[in-house]
């Protein structure tokens, strides 16, 4: 059972993620993409009078079912196949982040900041609530996320997806190098 509890190397997990593209196409002409599920949730729960949310979301319900599957996969892998050891993060990253005050490296997220207790601190609110807002607003504005653009779009050699993917990285780099140090110092 080691294979289930140990982390998988990139050359195993990367190709497996890539295989989602042909499998979804062959299973029913579905294009791989996760962020659309956020739109379907809006359309199903809070459409209001917004034109953008007035469409037959039930016709796209496979995407919501897929998202529910991810939650269940996370649950099983997180509880039953959990890696007993902390994630091996590069020393350089630990040094950099420690100098910015991050202490706990044992989980998937820095629990010093990502916790219910810190939700109402400036730092926690910015990273979780504002950060989450940017993810939802940005992916829809960009027309896709890492899966829809960076993986599906690039697999289909789409120039708009390449442009979007470059912008994902530019935004991430700007945040990491120029803004995140300031947020973490708050």
């Amino acid at each position: 059972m080691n294979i289930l509890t140990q982390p998988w190397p990139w050359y195993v997990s990367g190709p497996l993620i890539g295989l989602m593209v042909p499998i979804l196409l062959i299973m029913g002409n579905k294009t791989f993409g996760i962020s659309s599920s956020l739109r379907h949730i809006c359309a199903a729960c809070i459409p209001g009078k917004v034109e953008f949310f007035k469409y037959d979301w039930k016709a796209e319900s496979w995407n919501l079912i897929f998202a529910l599957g991810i939650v269940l996969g996370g649950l099983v892998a997180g509880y039953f196949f959990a890696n007993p050891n902390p994630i091996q993060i590069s020393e350089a990253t630990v040094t950099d982040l420690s100098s910015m005050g991050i202490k706990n490296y044992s989980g998937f997220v820095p629990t010093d900041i990502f916790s219910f207790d810190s939700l109402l601190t400036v730092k926690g609110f910015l990273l979780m609530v504002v950060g989450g807002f940017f993810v939802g607003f940005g992916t829809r504005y960009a027309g896709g996320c890492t899966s829809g653009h960076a993986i599906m779009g690039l697999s289909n050699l789409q120039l708009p997806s390449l442009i979007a993917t470059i912008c994902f990285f530019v935004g991430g780099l700007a945040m990491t190098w120029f803004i995140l140090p300031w947020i973490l110092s708050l």
Partner: protein
Amino acid sequence: MSKIKFLLLGFIFGVILIKAEVISWFRIQEMFRFQAFQMYGIIGSAVMIGVISVFLIKKYKVKTIHGEEIKIAPKQFNKGNIIGGLIFGFGWAMTGACPGPLYALVGSGLLVIAVVLLSAIFGTWVYGCLRNKLPH
């Protein structure tokens, strides 16, 4: 019932995300700090397999299991790819997660990430409201 296969595929994808450790906030930081190869290896090899698969599907006119022709809608360029892309990039580095990992993290028991996910849903909703006023 025909949709149960998508639940299973999502499940498998969720397990892969956890085992690949791409759901780790620290891995995303390593990537943006150019301090580890892991994320680049994962995204690069995923895209490589995707490109080869789509090429083969088109070349051999592979059909779906229901016998339909496989069609992939082309992506249309608009300014949102740039502006929205940058905004998502900020959020990716802040939360250390894109939408797929958000779902997997909530499943793994990090319930506070549900707040991030709700905020992302709200962000999508606000985009829907402002859509006509934003440059595209």
